[in-house]
């Protein structure tokens, strides 16, 4: 079943890329194809459940992989739908974009499913390359190419460090399979292995945009199209977080291991510094980049507990984050397509010019901030619960304090939207019916997830139970 997903995504992307030269002026057709593919994989992901290994045990196809298929296909589906927001005129409807999204998603799925460092690395690079290109897809945008260059540079440095770390771990354990590594690390950990683990973590830190390895994130977000920034902030992060969870649980010794502690440290630094830097931002996409950094920090805190609660919290956090973040980026996309730049300055008085859009923005932003009855609050709550369960009181208190900073910068957005007067010659805010229905759907999902999370949680829990 999962193999079918892999084949579907790989060849779906291939077909789309090959169709691209002929089909580029028909974004709807392209979107329909990619939507169909993602829909199919979504259903397959929901059906797949049995734990088994393929590729000589290098890839595990279990409930967690199935869950990752569902989550990432969902992102793909939403992005495919979101590509129609901009309508004609730009290449976001191009087959290549969808192909890259597909491969990015495929890389993510393999990342979660990997049980061998080689597959982990290849999957990571697959999804990373797709995003590098997506960021710089429009060759004429100065910021786009600039962002892609920075992202690519730092990303490749990160993967090189990750690789070197893997090599050191390999040197210590003599194995590249997760099981072998766990067995090798179980006896004793030498400086070599510790160095390797640290380097691996640094590499992954680059990819997850943990402070101090986050420098690419604001530029990448600012430079790319909001839709792509949305993809960037959800799909690779989802895959990496779940993949790191698998790695942590199956290879690095899980709860109480030294790696878990490091993850916690990095995550805490991300939460603190990310929140502080976010206070200084005036560009919405940059602000959201720092917000991503902070959210990845919270995720990392949950990861570091390596408990069932912690991993479930990670899962729920991801679901909440996907829905919220994509929703907000869709709004940005629609507004940018309508000629409204993504700056706080330009957003002044948005709520007065179009109340519905204002309310939708408020829902997403409040969810990001963690206001109760929205998905973001429960996500944070579960993270805190996991921390409390693990007895990480200091981390809990620091994280909780940073939530206040988060409120502060999210409310700056809301203040601009609702409190400031719009500029004189503000253009009309036109949302196409598709865009509006898509965003409304996501906003409803945010609310529903925040009020009645139980079905999602049950599903996540069964998916994650195998890890601990």
């Amino acid at each position: 079943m999962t193999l079918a997903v892999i084949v579907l995504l790989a060849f779906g992307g291939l077909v789309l890329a090959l169709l691209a030269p002929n089909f580029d002026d028909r974004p709807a057709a392209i979107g329909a194809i990619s939507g169909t593919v993602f829909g199919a994989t979504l259903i397959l992901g929901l059906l797949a459940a049995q734990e088994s290994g393929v590729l000589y045990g290098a890839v595990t196809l279990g409930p967690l992989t199935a869950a990752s298929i569902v989550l990432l296909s969902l992102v793909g589906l939403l992005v495919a739908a979101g590509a129609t927001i901009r309508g004609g005129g730009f290449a976001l409807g191009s087959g290549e974009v969808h192909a890259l999204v597909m491969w990015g998603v495929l890389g993510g799925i393999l990342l979660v499913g990997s049980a061998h460092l080689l597959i982990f690395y290849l999957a990571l690079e697959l999804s990373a390359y797709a995003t590098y290109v997506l960021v710089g897809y429009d060759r004429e945008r100065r910021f786009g190419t600039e962002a892609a260059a920075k992202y690519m540079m730092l990303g490749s440095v990160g993967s090189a460090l990750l690789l070197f770390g893997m090599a050191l771990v390999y040197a210590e354990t003599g194995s590249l399979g997760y099981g072998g590594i766990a067995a090798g690390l179980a006896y004793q950990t030498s400086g070599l292995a510790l160095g390797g683990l640290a380097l691996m973590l640094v590499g992954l830190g680059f990819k997850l945009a943990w402070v101090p390895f986050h420098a690419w994130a604001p530029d990448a977000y600012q430079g790319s199209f909001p839709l792509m920034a949305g993809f960037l902030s959800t799909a690779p992060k989802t895959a990496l977080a779940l993949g790191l969870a698998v790695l942590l649980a199956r290879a690095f010794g899980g709860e109480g291991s030294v790696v878990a502690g490091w993850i916690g440290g990095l995550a805490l630094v991300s939460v603190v510094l990310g929140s502080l830097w976010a206070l200084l931002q005036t560009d919405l996409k940059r602000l959201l980049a720092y917000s991503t950094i902070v959210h990845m920090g919270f995720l990392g805190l949950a990861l570091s507990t390596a408990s069932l609660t912690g991993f479930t919290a990670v899962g729920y956090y991801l679901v909440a984050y996907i829905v919220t973040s994509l929703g907000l980026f869709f709004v940005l996309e629609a507004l940018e397509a309508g000629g409204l730049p993504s700056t706080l300055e330009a957003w002044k008085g948005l709520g007065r010019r179009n109340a519905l859009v204002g309310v939708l923005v408020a829902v997403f932003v409040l969810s990001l901030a963690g206001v109760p009855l929205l998905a973001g609050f429960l996500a944070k709550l579960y993270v805190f619960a996991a921390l409390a369960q693990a007895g990480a009181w200091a981390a809990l208190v620091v994280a909780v304090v940073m939530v206040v900073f988060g409120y502060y910068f999210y409310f700056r957005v809301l203040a601009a939207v609702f409190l400031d007067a719009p500029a004189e010659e503000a253009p009309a805010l036109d949302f196409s019916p598709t865009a509006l229905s898509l965003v409304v759907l996501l906003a409803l999902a945010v609310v529903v997830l925040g009020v009645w999370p139980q079905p999602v949680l049950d599903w996540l829990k069964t998916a994650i139970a195998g890890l601990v």
Partner: protein
Amino acid sequence: MTLILIFLPIVAAAFVGLLDDPRAEAAKRTALGVALFTLIASLGVYLAYPVSFGGFVSEFKLAWLPLVGSSLHVGLDGLSLPFIALTPLLTAVSVLASWRKTDKGFFALMLLLQGALVGVFAALDLIVFFVFFELVLVPMYFMIALWGYEQRRYAAVKFLIYSLVGSVFMLAAMLATAYLAAPALGRVSFDYLDLVSVAGYLALLPAAGWLFWGFALAFLIKLPAVPLHTWLPHAHTQAPTAGSIFLAGLLLKMGGYGLIRFNLALFPGELERFANLLAVVALVSIVYGAYVTLAQRDLKRLIANSSVNHMGYVLLGIASMTAVGLHGAVYQMVAHGVITGLMFLMVGLLADRTHTREIAAMKGVYNAAPILGGVLWLALLGGLGLPGLAGFLGEFQSLWGGFLADVTRPYVWVAVFGIVILAGAMLWTIQRVLLGKAEGALDDLNPVEVAAAAPLVFLAVLLGLVPAALTPWIDAGVQPLLTLVQEVLK
């Protein structure tokens, strides 16, 4: 029933928000209707409450977040019922007070606020409590920031940040409490009743002090107690009339209510340990609050600062940990809700007419607008604690309770001076604002405004004269707690 009281306004808020209603005609009627309906419903529950038995009524429990052991657990008891009833009343008053507003959003926010506040007072689960506690902030923020006076942005943000700082520590403390109590309970539970049942175990925890302060910080900020009160003058002054009524009438009560509900019930040992400190804080609040009130030139600011003084008595009553003191605290909170609500209502209406809040700029209001002036006069007298009005009984019981306890007795002597100072401030205000010759004409209250003020005037007098309308309920709420506390302390 509790669920209806909580969620009907919230659903109504969403409904009002989605109405196509540019003049907000339907919105304000809907809001008023919902408020009145819930008022009647809550009064029904209030009156039907079996005061002699105590305990929780209209309890509802539904597993909500099993992952962390939290459930949607709400219920009403003698401690919460007065506030449950007060909330829709003040909402109705606020709606009437903002009858001229033309933004449907304003009324939607008010309904949301009402639902969230009822949720706060009804919550029997820590997480649920926190959810509603936080939910209150959002509509309040927007109410201040969108419809407030000139410095609204600053005031709103300050209000938000202060509240958040407290509430996030409370969240941390909640989580810690639940997980630290897990060994005794055998499971992780955020349920209030579960946790209360292991209060004895909690008292033995080395971290109990931290947990206590985690909760207390949030409530002291909300209360507010000096030195954590600095958000209050801004928020109250800058908020629109309805916002001020909500703030003073209900939001402050969340602090006192929380202190009794959680700090007293879960950590009585720690409360006893820190009673001295709390009493000092209370004393400073009383005296300093009164003193600062004396120095105000802005009418709304003056009332706001008097709240600091009033809430000091609440804290003093709680710190005494005596039945009388707790009675006084609750009574004072309800009374303050009524009286200060009335004061803000009147001052708001006055400010709308004079377009200024400067005390120096007003003169002879009583002569110009007798009804308005008269009601304001009554409210100011209530604020200084005149016997026969609601404020007196609360203050008196609090002080008396403080006097009964060894810890707080010395402070009561000083606290009395607070009454004197505040009385001076109030009387001086009456003299400056109400008396004298009127300069220019002032419209008197219109029927809608009279309708808004009437129930509050009625309550202010009723609670001043007939304490039996409230004390049995308070008794039913406080007595079991005190029994429990005695057990734990032994």
